[in-house]
């Protein structure tokens, strides 16, 4: 089963990371899910694949009533991001799924209907969680062509989806990046191969470097905090992406 770690708390405003399932079979990529709660409501970010639903569900429900989930934010359309959608909707059929307009007719293959999806336009939107304003920040082509991050300016937390993702070797499973140089080696190949546009990457770096971010939370690997956030942005800015040797 996965474990939950509260990474930010101010009263009932919380960010909870749902991470690291020792029982997860190796053929499934490891993912981090995040729950933002405010005023008794919750928004689940990149809820994960159908196969890990039991593990995410049980970890989440230990802290939070899953029927109080108001919505799901899906950074993009990948199966490791949102193929569990139908199962979450079983718990709350009225729940909304925020996703790029590009994927709003693709992701219903995982579940949901016409009422489920809130299409995010390319420039992003504000999502209100019981009055807490969360911003969908454009991160197109990083890696998906219709891709968003989610920013909470009160908590100063940026959920970055696949940006900042690292495929960590066994044993290196800390929740936070502790040694940037050692960590980033496990992110380099992924970013070079998965991220499709140097131009989009440059714009993302510009945008995010102007934001006040204490924690950058990727969907895979460890969380960057403090000075490592800017370190990551600079590293990413320098990296040539869209590279394939074949």
């Amino acid at each position, binding site marked *: 089963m996965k474990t939950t770690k509260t990474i930010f708390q101010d009263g009932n405003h919380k960010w909870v990371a749902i991470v690291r399932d020792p029982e997860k079979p190796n053929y499934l990529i490891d993912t981090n899910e995040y729950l933002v709660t405010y005023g008794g409501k919750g928004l689940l970010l990149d809820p994960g694949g*159908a196969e890990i639903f*039991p593990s995410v*569900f049980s970890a989440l*429900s230990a802290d939070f009533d899953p029927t109080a989930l108001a919505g799901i934010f899906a950074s993009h359309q990948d199966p490791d991001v949102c193929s569990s959608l*139908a*199962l979450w909707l*079983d*718990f709350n059929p009225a729940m909304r799924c925020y996703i790029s307009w590009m994927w709003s007719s693709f992701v219903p293959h995982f579940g949901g209907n016409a009422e489920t999806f809130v299409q995010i336009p390319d420039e992003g939107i504000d999502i209100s969680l019981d009055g807490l304003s969360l911003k969908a920040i454009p991160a197109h082509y990083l890696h998906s062509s219709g891709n968003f991050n989610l920013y909470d300016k009160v908590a100063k937390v940026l959920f970055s989806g696949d940006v900042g993702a690292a495929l960590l070797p066994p044993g290196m499973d800390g929740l936070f990046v502790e040694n940037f140089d050692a960590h980033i080696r496990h992110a380099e190949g992924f970013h070079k191969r998965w991220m499709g546009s140097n131009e989009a990457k440059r714009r993302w770096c510009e945008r995010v470097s102007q934001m006040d971010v204490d924690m950058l939370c990727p969907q895979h690997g460890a969380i960057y905090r403090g000075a490592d956030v800017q370190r990551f942005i600079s590293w990413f800015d320098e990296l040539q992406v869209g590279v394939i040797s074949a």
Partner: protein
Amino acid sequence: MTATSIMTAKTPAAGTDLLQIVHINEEIKRVVGVSVKINIMALNAIFLAKRAGTAALGFGVLSNELRVFSQDLRTCMESLNGLIHACVNQVSIGLKGIRTGRLLSEAARLAPQQPAVARILQDHKREIERRDQQLTILRRQLKGALEDVFQMVELGGVLAKSAKIEAAYGQSFAASLAQVSGEFDGVVEEIRGSLEALRRSAFFTGNRNNWRG
């Protein structure tokens, strides 16, 4: 038996159902193919009877009847497509439901403190039972439709046998008429064989009503 083991135990049955439907569909396509063959054979037999003149009047009438039979048979077999499609649909939904059931059961096991999971698992089971009942109805309808075809083929068999008898009165054409009527008999038997195989399909005969527990 736990909810999890019930859900997992069901997997092979639903998968087998889908495979059996595929076999049924292939057999239906075979019968449609043979019915086209009878149509062509009957056309040739009609021309042969015309050439034989008064000696093959009865044979000509029977050939006409066999032609009508082949067309009816084809229409009837093709009309089964809708039922087959509905069965595939139900079984596919069932297969998806098994996966959902497995994941919900696992969630219920890991989060026993959540009453919502047990409730949703119950709803899910009820939905699966409803789907099961629909599949049982479709199974019965398909079986009934195949029995109707079987009756039709019995009639085709009688026509082919009568054509064999009529061929004997064909004087100088008797040998060629006998050959044609023998071929009729052969293809009708072929259809009968296919229908017998369909009747025996485990999709109908197995104790399938409780394939989802």
